[in-house]
């Protein structure tokens, strides 16, 4: 999918330049794009190092675990099929916490563990269970407390207030999570009515 999009963007651009006579701009764009990307990544190092360092302290101090306990009553309602003492619940909660704090890399293994446990709950079937779909819906509309990467990019391009988007991002991601939950429930009831 992404391969095709990537090739199409480049090839259409080149063909368009032939017709439009913008070849010299395209020549320049190739090298400008590449150097822009590297400069950006180098610029991102500072904030990523700082933030992930902070998050590591939070994790070691058990802060993320405590937060997970706080959210447990809400999350229990979202997953009626998962017994609250089941390991799946723990993994689901830790994955959500990791996503919230922008620890994408830490979130992935936790998410996979959560899926494994949900599969066990579903008798090892290779079909997606109701809880799995709910988990995925919440995950993809990720409630974000600190959009680390975005703040880093805004700093790099000298924003007057790089963190001003924290509040709006939180509001937008909570709205989309609520939307995701409603959509997920709708599809679930539709399935149960059918079969």
């Amino acid at each position, binding site marked *: 999918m992404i391969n095709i999009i*990537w090739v199409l963007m480049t090839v259409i651009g080149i063909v368009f330049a032939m017709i439009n006579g913008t070849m010299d701009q395209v020549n320049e764009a190739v090298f400008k*794009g590449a150097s822009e990307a590297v400069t950006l990544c180098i610029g991102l*190092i500072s904030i990523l190092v700082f933030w992930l360092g902070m998050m590591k*302290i939070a994790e070691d101090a058990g802060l993320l675990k405590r937060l997970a306990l706080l959210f447990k009553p809400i999350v229990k309602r979202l997953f009626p099929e998962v017994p609250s003492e089941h390991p799946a619940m723990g993994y689901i909660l830790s994955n959500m916490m990791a996503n919230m704090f922008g620890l994408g890399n830490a979130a992935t293994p936790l998410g996979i563990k959560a899926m494994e446990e949900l599969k066990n709950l579903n008798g090892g079937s290779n079909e997606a269970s109701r809880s799995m779909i709910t988990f*995925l819906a919440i995950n993809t509309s990720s409630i974000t407390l*600190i959009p680390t990467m975005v703040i880093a990019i805004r700093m790099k391009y000298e924003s007057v207030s790089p963190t001003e988007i924290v509040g709006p991002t939180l509001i937008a991601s909570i709205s*989309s999570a609520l939307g995701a939950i409603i959509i997920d429930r709708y599809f679930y009831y539709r399935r149960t009515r059918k079969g």
Partner: protein
Amino acid sequence: MQIVSMISLWFIPVLIGFILIYGTFKRIPTYESFVEGGKEGIKIAVSIIPFLVGMLVAISVFRASGALEYLNELIRPALEAIGVPPEIFPLSIIRPISGSAALGMTSDLIATYGPDSFIGRLASVLQGSTDTTFYVLTVYFGAVGIRKMGDALKVGLLADLVGIIAAIVVVTLIFGI
């Protein structure tokens, strides 16, 4: 709306202070933990270089040739009718498909229009408030061998659509056009 900006401004410094005090209180070797976590940051920043180089070259070729502008003009009437800035359209489409491509587009939009412009802010919020549905679906389900995905993709993509609409509404309300 003043409150939202105020919270945005205070939130991170207060959080940093809180984490440090809490960690010290819990007898965590704070500095060592910090360094340990920071190493991850370098890894991430360096490992996304090839993704971003590939993506930003494609985007800047597409933009420099004039193809992007042509596409924007083509879809402008339809999008403006529903209040979506056409500049943000490619990002909305790519966000659920590829994380690195979306990151490239977001940084390109912020670089082009400025981080404090309406488009720049919208791109920031859009990038932060939804995740890469296809990636999460592929990795999570692939790792545990789920073959029948049921409604998962439909639900995920519809949730992304809600996220995009939410981002546009929130940014318009808080910052104005």
